[in-house]
């Protein structure tokens, strides 16, 4: 039983790795971005296999045989392996010769005492977070409201529904389960449930935990790769400056997987627009942004913001033509998931609860209502005061300020502009929502903050760290 699920996980990892390692350049220091690439591969792999699972469901709804599905799943992986190898330039087919590790730009040497202090800090924080996480997960085994009312409900229908599986998306009685929501999370859980032959709550719990660990590893990996262990550990442990990150992991909501996709996208974008940036990173950034918009509707806003931010930053730094070339690289990665996501929305009769059930004049009335602006800003101020641990936040800011500013701010600007545009979009959604504003703010305001927090840490770090990844000598810029 578990062996099938493990093969399914391995399939997703290998599929993602084929794509990510094929598209991104080899780095001069071979392991420099290995953690970032591996985490990105995990996200992309699961996103692709969630789509392939739904394709299987559409094409062979009456075949519930796990072995047949495992074959299908493995065929997708094999196809990706063949494609990656066939399109690989001859120079990269052989295992690369060991080059002298490049001196990492801005690498900060640390003394033995500081190293041990850092290691202790790391262990304490991880252990504390793990204790809280397991405690919460044990208390709410089936997750919080959205988990059983939306995400896992759909997953259960997908895996047990037989020929009727799509009724959870089309039947009017499921309208409050939001049939228009993207399907990465329910399809991934259903895929693992099908392979494991159970509908155990451990699967969605493990999925949420994996997303949190991946977010943590991404911050650790990118900080360490670009600047050294101090930056990596400070960045990674700063995730817990908002303790709600851990609680949300246990709820089995889609916010932590989305947060993970946001962060991976911005890392790829930062490296892609950095000095000597390879456009392969932008394409992978597009793929991960695609995974974000296939996770939650907020991802559509984020992907558009990332695209626009790259165009703005590249236009300001170089020319508009080069900005369009960068945008094209992102679009190449983004489009497959965008098409799947929009196609799904077109096929499902229920519209979005915020946008489709009100007229333009009603929205405009909301926009011009001053009391709504006051309510949103008040709640933002309330979150800023109550969500983060203020001392942890001050220490993070002190680290950033004391580290000095790098010369090239394009990566920091790209991430900052993306986050700013996404925040403006969130503000606009709160403004026009037809739901009760107080209810909307209290149920989703803090979750949106948690979604963006790891990306905010990255943006702060990029003010002090040069996002330059030197490719190998034989790796030509496209």
């Amino acid at each position, binding site marked *: 039983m578990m062996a099938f699920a493990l093969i399914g996980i391995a399939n997703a990892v290998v599929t993602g790795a084929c794509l990510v390692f094929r598209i991104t350049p080899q780095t001069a220091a071979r392991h420099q971005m290995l953690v970032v690439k591996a985490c990105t591969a995990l996200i992309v792999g699961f996103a692709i296999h969630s789509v392939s699972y739904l394709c299987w469901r559409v094409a062979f709804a009456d075949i519930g045989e796990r072995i047949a599905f495992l074959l299908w799943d493995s065929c997708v992986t094999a196809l990706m392996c063949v494609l990656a190898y066939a399109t690989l330039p001859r120079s990269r087919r052989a295992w690369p010769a060991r080059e002298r590790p490049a001196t990492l730009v801005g690498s900060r040497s640390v003394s033995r005492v500081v190293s041990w*202090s850092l290691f202790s800090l790391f262990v304490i924080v991880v252990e*504390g977070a793990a204790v809280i996480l397991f*405690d919460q997960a044990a208390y709410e085994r*089936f997750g919080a409201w959205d988990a059983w*009312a939306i995400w896992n*409900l759909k997953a259960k229908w997908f895996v047990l529904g037989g020929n009727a599986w799509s009724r959870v998306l089309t039947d009017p009685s499921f309208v409050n389960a939001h049939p228009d929501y993207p399907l990465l999370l329910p399809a991934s859980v259903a895929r693992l449930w099908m392979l494991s032959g159970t509908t155990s709550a451990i699967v969605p719990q493990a999925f949420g935990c994996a997303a949190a660990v991946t977010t943590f590893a991404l911050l650790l990996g990118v900080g360490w790769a670009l600047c050294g262990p*101090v930056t990596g550990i400070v960045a990674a442990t700063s995730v817990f400056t908002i303790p709600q990150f851990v609680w949300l992991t246990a709820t089995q909501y889609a916010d932590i997987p989305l947060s993970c996709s946001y962060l991976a996208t911005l890392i790829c974008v930062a490296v892609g627009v950095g000095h000597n940036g390879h456009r392969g990173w932008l394409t992978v950034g597009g793929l991960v942004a695609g995974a974000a918009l296939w996770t939650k509707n907020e991802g559509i806003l984020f992907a558009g913001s990332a695209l626009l931010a790259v165009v703005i930053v590249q236009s300001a730094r170089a020319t508009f033509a080069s900005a369009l070339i960068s945008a094209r690289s992102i679009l190449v990665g983004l489009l497959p998931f965008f098409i799947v996501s929009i196609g799904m929305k077109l096929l499902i009769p229920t519209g979005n609860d915020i946008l489709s059930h009100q007229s333009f004049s009603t929205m405009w009335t909301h926009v011009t209502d001053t009391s709504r602006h006051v309510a949103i800003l008040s709640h933002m101020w309330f979150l800023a005061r109550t969500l983060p641990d203020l*001392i942890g936040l001050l220490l993070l800011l002190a680290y950033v300020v004391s580290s000095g500013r790098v010369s090239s701010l394009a990566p920091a600007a790209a991430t900052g502009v993306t986050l700013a545009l996404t925040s403006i979009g969130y503000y606009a959604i709160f403004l026009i929502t037809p739901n009760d504003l107080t209810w909307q703010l209290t149920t989703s305001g803090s979750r949106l903050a948690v979604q963006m927090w790891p990306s905010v840490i990255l943006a702060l770090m990029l003010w002090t760290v040069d996002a330059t990844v030197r490719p190998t000598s034989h790796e030509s810029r496209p």
Partner: protein
Amino acid sequence: MAALLIRSVFLIVPAAMRSHVSTRSRPNDGTSERIERLASITFERPPGATIGYATVVTPADAEFSRRYGIARYVVAPQILDSTDRHSVVLADFDSDSQLMAYVHQHNLVLRQHPGAGVGVVESGAAQR
């Protein structure tokens, strides 16, 4: 760095303890227990069949959404209608006395009774 380390000790350890205490002392909304109470119910009907739902609270009550949502999750892939106007009904009450009163009041047959207050009931027409 030392400040960060000390701070982390004073932040994480109490936070973990606070979390543990608040988790245990928080009023339990009973979601997990409710899911497990209903989990042993089985329906020998094809996926996508519609069944009714009867409970002690009315749809106007805020508690109804939670109870109904949990029941809908548990009975998937059956469609759970929010009314009891069906031949097969999931009865989700707080006690056996409430369940039996409902059964007698509507002249129903109790088919499954996996736990206190919970049952699958069928109407007389369905029985025939």
